[in-house]
């Protein structure tokens, strides 16, 4: 896949809640406030997965959401990245042995960047975006 540098400077983000407690959502909203202003780097929230380059997944993927998550992931146009935000999505968090979990996220869809925290601070989310950009640059450099 041929990627050029424009991709790094224009990441459009779609947010998917797979059963989160809303704590991570609040931190995501905090990360797009004027104080952090990610639009400086071309990062923009979009409403449709078709427009998105990055999907932010929060929550531990409950039973009902597994099918939806797969379908939304399939709707995104290639090349695409997935960022898993919050401890729930990484390990299940406090819900780790619940009867209702299909997760964690990386058992359902491939995840590129993990951002731990319950919830992660906005700085952590922005650091995760930087990690995602580094991964993109590695892909552009020809590594897999």
């Amino acid at each position, binding site marked *: 896949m*041929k*990627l*050029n540098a*424009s*991709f790094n*400077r*224009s990441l459009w983000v779609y947010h998917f809640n797979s059963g989160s407690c809303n704590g991570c959502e609040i931190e995501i909203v905090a990360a797009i406030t*004027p104080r952090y*202003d990610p*639009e*400086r*780097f*071309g990062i923009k*929230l*979009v*409403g*449709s997965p*078709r*427009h998105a*380059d990055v999907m932010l997944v929060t929550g531990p993927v409950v039973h009902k959401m597994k099918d939806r998550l797969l379908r939304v992931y399939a*709707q995104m*146009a*290639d*090349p695409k990245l997935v960022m898993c935000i919050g401890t729930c999505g990484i390990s299940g968090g406090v819900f780790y042995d619940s009867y209702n979990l299909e997760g964690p996220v990386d058992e359902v869809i491939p995840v590129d960047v993990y951002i731990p925290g319950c919830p992660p601070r906005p700085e952590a989310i922005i650091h995760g975006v930087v990690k995602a950009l580094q991964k993109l640059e590695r892909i552009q450099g020809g590594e897999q």
Partner: protein
Amino acid sequence: MTLLGIATMGMWCILLSLFALAGGLFLLGVDRKLAAHMQARIGPPIRQPFIDVAKLLQKENIVPANAIPCLFHLAPVIALVSSIVVLFYLPVGSILPVLGVYGDLVLVMYLLAVPALAMVAGGFASGSPYATVGAQREMVTMIAYEFPLAIVVIGVAWRLGAAGLPLPFTLGTIAANPIWTLVGPVGFIGALLLLLVLAVVTPAELSRIPFDTQEAETELAGGLLVEYSGRNLAMFYLAQGVKTLVFAAVIIAIFFPWNLSGLLAMPPWLAWPADLLFFLVKSILVLFFAVTLVRVGMARFRINQVVSLYWVYLSVIGFLGLILLMADASLVTLGVVGA
């Protein structure tokens, strides 16, 4: 027409198309930067829309299973091409309308509806309920703002005709005779009202807040454009930029047609680029007040509010302006006030 004439015209059209694409994206970038500064942010670089288009062009172009592929692919092309074509009938700086001989302001009004219709066709062809709702809303919005827009066009052209100018609907005539210099004090107020109406029509024409009910990111997830990705979305993005430039050019041609070379003495080789720059400055000013300031300061209207706003309030204001212009024309004819 000779072969050479056709070739010259074709070359001008290609140059203008390139200018429309680059200038449109530049205006979108300026809009985003200004909006960011008003929200106490730093905002994206002005070349951000260029980067966005470059990115969209390298993404996958998905056609949904429910879509009608030919219409789905045709809609963005028509939207982009038709919005570029409008610019051929408009004066840009001191460049006279390239195809001005073949069409006037009425044609421009019709052509301005084509990109919106293409978007409606694309929305219905996407086969998504969100896009269908968006397409219906786009049609309603279009029906709502066409009437006030027509009042403005008719009003200005009628006043030019009443002043005894031949061919008042041609853009050459309109641009050469600014409405403000023809009217008396009563007509001046009328023209101001018409300018206000045109300024309020602008955000709806460009589907920006507060009249972006058809795209409505937060409720319709992008509305008309919800299923578009990759190259097709890039074309809609470009069409949005070109439409922005075109509508600024319409407002400038009708109400602010002055050129720098007409105001200051300058050598001919300088006049052309200076007028072009002056045109861009005028577009930024017009768009700042008509689009950026409004979209930062307001929330979105509901679709029924959009209709009543245009059909009731703005039509009344437009008619008032029209009546004032007519009164002005008869006052000038009777010799009560001088023009």
